[in-house]
C-alpha cells in the first residue's frame, strides 16, 4: 500500500507546515503519515456514500474527488516548490482526450489512460526542463501559453476531437470492476468509489513524497532557490520532477473525468479550468493535501448550491485568489489549524 513510508511520527523534525497533521496523534507511531492520510480520505469517501441520497450527489461527489486529485498535483507544484502553472488544464485534457480517442483505434481504456498520462508527463518533461531554469514568472507565462495551445488544438482539430462540441467517451465502466467481486452498484456509485480511491491514493503518495528526501529538496527550494543549491540540490532537476509529477496528477484526473462523465469538451483544457485548479489549491491551502480537498470541495459544491455563482463565477474565483493571498496567504486549512493550535496552547 502507498502508506509504508519510512518516516514515523517519532521523527522530531516535523515543523510548521505539517504540524497540524499530527495534532494529538503523536503517540501512535505505527501508522505512517501516507497510510494515515489514505485512511482519513477513505473514511471521508465512505461518509459521503453513507449520506448521499441520490445519484446526483454521487456524481457531484465524484467530481469533488477528481478535482481533489488534480489539485493535489497543484499542491506538489505550488505548495511544495512554490511554482505556479496556468496551463494544468492542458495536461488534464491530454489525459481526458487520450482516454476518449484511443479506444476507437482499438486500444483498451486502461492502456489509453496510461498513454494519456505518459503523454502529459512527457510533455511536461520536455517543456519544463529549459523553462524551470529561469525565474518563477516564466513557468506561469509558458504554461499559460502551452495550455492555450493545447486548448486550441482540441477545439480546432474536429476530425480527431469533435471540435468545440466535444466528444462522447466510450469504454470502461467502473460497474464492471465491482461486478468482478460480486458487487452490484449503479455506475454513478461505482465511479464515486473509484474516484475516491484514486484521490486517497494520490494524497497518500503526495504526503509520502513531501517526507522523502526529494520532497525535502522541493521544500528547501520553496524557501530559497539559492540556499537549496548551496546545499547541493539540483534545483532545475528537482523543479522539473515536481512539474512532471503534477502534470501526471492532472492527467490521471482528466482520464477519470472522461470515463466517469462519458463526455468531454475542450473547456476541460481551457484557461478558466486551469485558474479554477489554482484557486482551489490557494483557497484550501496549497501546502497540504487536505487543503486540496477542502478547496476542491468548496469550489465544486458551491456552484451546485448557489445558482448565482454561474453569473459571477469569474468575480468569485478572482476575488478568492486576491483576498486569500492578502488575508491568509497559506489558505483555509493551515489558517484554521493555526487558530486551533493557538486555542489549545
Amino acid at each position, binding site marked *: 500500500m502507498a502508506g509504508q513510508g519510512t518516516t514515523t511520527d517519532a521523527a522530531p523534525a516535523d515543523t510548521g507546515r505539517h504540524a497540524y497533521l499530527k495534532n494529538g496523534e503523536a503517540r501512535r507511531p505505527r501508522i505512517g503519515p501516507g497510510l494515515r492520510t489514505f485512511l482519513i480520505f477513505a473514511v471521508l469517501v465512505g461518509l459521503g456514500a453513507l449520506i448521499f441520497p441520490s445519484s446526483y450527489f454521487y456524481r457531484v461527489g465524484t467530481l469533488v474527488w477528481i478535482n481533489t486529485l488534480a489539485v493535489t498535483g497543484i499542491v506538489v507544484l505550488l505548495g511544495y516548490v512554490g511554482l505556479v502553472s496556468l496551463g494544468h488544464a492542458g495536461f488534464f485534457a491530454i489525459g481526458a482526450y487520450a482516454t476518449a480517442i484511443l479506444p476507437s483505434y482499438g486500444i483498451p481504456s486502461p492502456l489509453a489512460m496510461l498513454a494519456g498520462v505518459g503523454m502529459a508527463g512527457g510533455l511536461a518533461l520536455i517543456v519544463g526542463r529549459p523553462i524551470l531554469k529561469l525565474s518563477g514568472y516564466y513557468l*506561469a507565462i509558458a504554461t*499559460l501559453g502551452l495550455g492555450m495551445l493545447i486548448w486550441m488544438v482540441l477545439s480546432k482539430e474536429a476530425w480527431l476531437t469533435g471540435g468545440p462540441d466535444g466528444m462522447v467517451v466510450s469504454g470502461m465502466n467502473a460497474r464492471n470492476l465491482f461486478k468482478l467481486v460480486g458487487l452490484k452498484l449503479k455506475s454513478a456509485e461505482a465511479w464515486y468509489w473509484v474516484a475516491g480511491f484514486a484521490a486517497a491514493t494520490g494524497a497518500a503518495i503526495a504526503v509520502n513524497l513531501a517526507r522523502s528526501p526529494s520532497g525535502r529538496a522541493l521544500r528547501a527550494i520553496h524557501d530559497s532557490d539559492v540556499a537549496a543549491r548551496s546545499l547541493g540540490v539540483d534545483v532545475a532537476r528537482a523543479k522539473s520532477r515536481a512539474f512532471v509529477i503534477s502534470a501526471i496528477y492532472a492527467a490521471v484526473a482528466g482520464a477519470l473525468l472522461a470515463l466517469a462523465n462519458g463526455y468531454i469538451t475542450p473547456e476541460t483544457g481551457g484557461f478558466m479550468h486551469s485558474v479554477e485548479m489554482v484557486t482551489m489549491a490557494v483557497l484550501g491551502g496549497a501546502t497540504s493535501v487536505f487543503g486540496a480537498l477542502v478547496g476542491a470541495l468548496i469550489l465544486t459544491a458551491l456552484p451546485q448550491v448557489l445558482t448565482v455563482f454561474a453569473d459571477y463565477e469569474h468575480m468569485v474565483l478572482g476575488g478568492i485568489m486576491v483576498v486569500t*493571498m492578502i488575508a491568509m496567504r497559506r489558505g483555509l486549512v493551515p489558517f484554521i489549524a493555526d487558530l486551533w493550535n493557538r486555542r489549545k496552547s
Partner: protein
Amino acid sequence: MSELLQFLVSGLTVGAIYAAIALGFTLIYNASGVVNFAQGEFVVIGGMTAAALIGAGVPVWIAAPLAVVAGMLVGVALYRAAIRPAREAPLVSLIIITIGASIFLRGAMQAVFDKQIHRYDGFSGDAPLRVGGATILPQSLWIIGGSIAVFAFLAWFLNRTRAGRGIKATASNRMAAALVGINTGRAMNLSFALSAAIGALAGVLATPVTFTSYDVGVLMALKGFSATMLGGVGSPLGALAGGLLIGLIEAMTAGYISSDYKDASAFVVILLVLFLRPQGLFGARITERV
C-alpha cells in the same frame, strides 16, 4: 507581392497594439518587479468603456479620453487594493494576485457591460485607403501612430521629467530612492496609472479593427507577454520591436499557414524564446540578485 504587402500592413497594425501592451508591462515591471497578468484587462476596459459611451451617443473625442481615464482609475485601484497590501509577499503570491485580479476584472466587465462583441466606427471613417496594391484602414494609421506616440512619450517622460526619473530611481533601488527624498509610493501609483492608461488607449484605438469583448484580456496579455519576452524583458525598445514582430509573425501565420492557428504563433514564440534565448532580442542576460 500585393498579398505580402497586405499581410505586412495588418501585421503592423495588430503588432502596434501588442507593442503598446508590452510597453505597459515593461513600465510596471521596471517600477515594481511585478509581472502584471491583469495588463490585458486594461485593454478591454478601454475598448468596452469607449464602446458603451459611443453606443450611448457620446461623441468619440469625449468617449475616448474618458475610457482612458477609466482604465487609469482601475489601474490605481488595482495597485492600492491588491498589489500594495502584498508588497512583501513572495513572487508566487504576487503572480496569483495579479491573475486573480485579472479574472475578477473580467467578471466585473461581464457584469457591468455584457457578453457581446463590440466595435464602433473608426476615428477617421472606415473607407480603406489604397497603398501600392494593398488596402489600409485609416484606423490602422491611428493605431500605429498611437503606439509610436506612446513610446516617444514614455522615453521623454522617464528621462526628462522629475516624476519619470522618480519612477526610474524607484525601479533601480526603492530604498535608495526613498533615502534621497523620492516619494516612492507616488512613483508606484504613477507607474500603475500610466501603464493602465497605455493599455486602455490601446483598447480604445484597436476596437474598431479588432473588436472587443469581456474575455479577450487574457489573450491580449499573453500577446503582450510574448512581445515583451521576444524583445527582452525590461527594455522599452524591445517591447516596441517585439510587439511589431509578434504582429507580423501572426499575420504571416494567418496568411500563409492557417488562420485557425494565428493565435498559436504568439505562444510558440514564447516557448521558442524561453528555449533558445531567454534574455530576448534586446534584453541583458538575466541575472538575479540574491
